[in-house]
């Protein structure tokens, strides 16, 4: 069984916890310190989205081993209001929360794989992966 960590996200201090756990797992998986920082930053943005838009949710961190190819998967899940226009939400500078609008598009650039699934009224799940180079 590969290590898996779940961090409940309810308040701003949980954002710090999530990204610290993410950095620890990334370090244990064999990522360089630069890539650990990229992963931690992406987690921070996703955790922030949960606090800002959904009030509560969770971040699940999973170490990946795909026949010797190691990596990390980050799943950010909430049961918030969902995203009305996913295409628009992925655009740089678009924000409904008076923020900088870099969270989703920025996190996609920091990671290798990025998938957004959202249903209005049901919630949002972002799944991101990064592989050790």
């Amino acid at each position, binding site marked *: 069984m590969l290590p898996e960590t779940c961090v409940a996200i309810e308040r*701003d*201090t949980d*954002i*710090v916890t999530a*990204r*610290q756990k993410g*950095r620890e797992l990334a370090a244990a998986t064999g990522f360089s*310190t*630069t890539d*650990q*920082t*990229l992963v*931690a*930053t992406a987690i*921070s*943005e996703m955790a*922030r989205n949960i606090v800002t838009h959904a009030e509560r949710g969770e971040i699940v961190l999973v170490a990946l081993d795909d026949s010797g190819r190691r990596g990390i998967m980050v799943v950010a899940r909430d049961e918030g209001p969902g995203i009305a226009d996913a295409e628009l939400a992925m655009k*740089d500078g678009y924000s409904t929360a008076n*923020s*900088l609008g*870099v*969270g989703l*598009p*920025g*996190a996609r*650039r*920091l990671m290798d794989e990025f998938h957004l699934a959202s249903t209005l009224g049901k919630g949002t799940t972002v799944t991101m992966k990064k592989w050790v180079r």
Partner: protein
Amino acid sequence: MPVPILKQGDVLIASIQAALSDKDLAQLRDDLADRVGRFRIRGLVLDLTALDVLDSFATRMIRSIVYTSKLRGAETVVVGIQPDVAFAMVQLGLALDGVATALDLEDGLAILRRGIEGGNAGAA
């Protein structure tokens, strides 16, 4: 955890020691705004050496601290952003436009000193 703020003449040095929550950052912004007026501060150094992540919210708060202080007559130099943190910020699409930066505290203080002694040209 509140950020310690040191006063040295007409300069304040805020040295962030550990990862900050959103509330800590907002508190720092308010504390600095208050002290700039109370102590007639001309320059601020924000030392971010110990930060391992600067995300969009933290960047927005830092810009807010710098612009607020500027409107109150104090210039700010942001120092100590680590190479990995800078790289992640660029990837994320974050910038500190119009914000003076320096490698470390020593450089930051030198820049401020030149700005203050050079009159209203400022550091930024």
